[in-house]
């Protein structure tokens, strides 16, 4: 029976303030971009695993981009090569790649900070599925400062690799403190580039997500899907701890009905 699996760290690469953890997970089932796993160092001082987005995968080698924000994520970020950790996943509902890549218009990826995590995998899955159709993808990333912006590297690698598969993919990065070009936010980039009919995949802080939705709602025919973050306990829909209230007043578990939600479900019309 599938349960949590003991994985082993094959690489721990610091990327500015974050860490890209590559883990060999025996029996890993391929994730869809936007899905996550619960990760817990073994041994751990924490009781529960932490929900971390799958950033990339090749067979049983799975990458996670982690920002050290609390005890659990700090522990994960400090895992050296060869260390063990428990992995439960992939979990949740990821991005609908076929909906994002419908054969007219363009896909726009919008990410802020550690919200960049799922997008190396999304770019690769779009290239593998839709590169031959020369699908068009615009990647817009926003970071607080130049140190944080080093987390763009995995997406940059995925964008470069996607060209060989025919994907027409372009990347722009906004850095808020002006340390790399003009001081601007990812929503400034979006305002400049958004076109009617674009389809968005969004992940980032709540404030950014709400601002992205406001920009979208001013443009015709835009569809947007948001990957949300929440504190979770079980990650599988059991505990109802991560539930949010949707625009229609109903409740949804970020771990089970999400973490990817249609913008209209979350923000309303």
């Amino acid at each position, binding site marked *: 029976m599938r349960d949590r699996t003991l994985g082993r760290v094959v690489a721990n690469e610091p990327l500015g303030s974050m860490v890209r953890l590559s883990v060999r997970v025996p029996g890993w089932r391929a994730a869809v971009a936007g899905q996550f796993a619960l990760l817990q160092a073994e041994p751990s001082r924490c009781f529960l695993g932490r929900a971390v987005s799958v950033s990339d995968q090749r067979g049983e080698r799975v990458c996670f981009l982690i920002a050290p924000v609390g005890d659990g994520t700090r522990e994960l970020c400090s895992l050296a090569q060869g260390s063990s950790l428990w992995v439960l996943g992939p979990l949740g509902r990821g991005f609908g790649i076929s909906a994002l890549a419908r054969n007219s218009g363009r896909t726009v990826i919008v990410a802020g900070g550690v919200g960049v995590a799922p997008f190396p995998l999304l770019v690769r899955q779009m290239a593998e599925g839709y590169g031959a159709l020369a699908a068009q993808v615009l990647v817009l990333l926003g970071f607080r400062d130049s140190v944080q912006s080093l987390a763009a590297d995995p997406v940059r690698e995925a964008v470069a690799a996607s060209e060989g598969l025919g994907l027409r993919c372009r990347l722009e990065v906004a850095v808020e403190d002006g340390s790399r070009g003009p001081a601007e936010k990812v929503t400034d980039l979006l305002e400049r580039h958004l076109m009617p009919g674009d389809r968005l995949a969004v992940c980032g802080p709540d404030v950014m997500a709400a601002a992205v939705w406001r920009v979208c709602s001013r443009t015709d025919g835009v569809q947007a899907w948001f990957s949300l973050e929440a*504190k979770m306990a079980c990650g599988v829909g059991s505990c109802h701890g991560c539930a949010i209230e949707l625009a229609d007043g109903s409740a949804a578990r970020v771990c089970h009905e999400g973490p990817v939600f249609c913008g209209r479900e979350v923000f309303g019309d």
Partner: protein
Amino acid sequence: MTDLAVRLGPLRLEHPLINASGTMEIFELAEALGPQIVEQPPVAAYVSKTVTLDPRLGNPGPRILETVGGLINAIGLPGPGLATFLEYELPRLLMLPCPVIISVGGFSTDEYVTLARGLRDSLGRTVDGDWSERVGLELNISCPNVHSGCAAIGADPGETERVVAAVRKIWPGLLVAKLTPNVADIAAVGRAAATGGADAIAAVNTYKGLVIDRETLRPYLGNVTGGLSGPAIRPLALRAVYDLFPAVEVPIIGMGGVATAQDVVDFISCGATVVAVGCSVFREPCLAGRLAGELLSALEARGFSLETLLGVAHAPL
């Protein structure tokens, strides 16, 4: 070979490990982890999330926070309400290959009776023959995260006896009373539940607690208070089971921080016939099945059977 099968009223369980209500949505788990979990559940009986009469959204967030050795929650019994439960959830629960125990929670004696009657009538209509060997009822009179009824009933022996007796009159199957530990004398409440006609006592629900948001210095949970669970409460829960064992003749379902096979042995030693795993399944969904296997080895290693281990902590050394 040691036999792990136990009886809980009319239910026969293949082993003593079940789940605590509200910690395992087995069909959601099947979506996440594959269908094997419903084909061969890791639990010997499946306990549902608490069903309420009316639909409930639950408490405002945040609802959950990890604490030292466990977690605190204030979920607030969200759910679709009895009618939807009976129509959509009960039929698939009845397809599980193990007994199911339906947890119900109410805000008055009448509500508990209405819930039990609704379930009984629905089972009578949909199940051919006697369902009492397959389905039990657990009265959640102990949720700390709703503001009336429920734990207010379970905090009072008189109220507890009244609710249990009222349900007993109309519920022919296994009847479990789940107790709150947030009382001065849990044995008195257990005795009242048994007097009212409970076939088993489940102990304990969570310990009422509070955590502070370290940025705002205000209560963190949307509900202000919550219920603490996990290994941190295990000695407290063991003490509750230890106190209940000499007080009641009915079997006890012990729970509180169970994470290892040794923890299961501890609970059985104190007097639990059945042991439930709670929030530790959030780390390891199939924990109950693993612990059942390890319990067998633990019993054999110590030369105990379930019968000889039960309540051994009360005997002089």
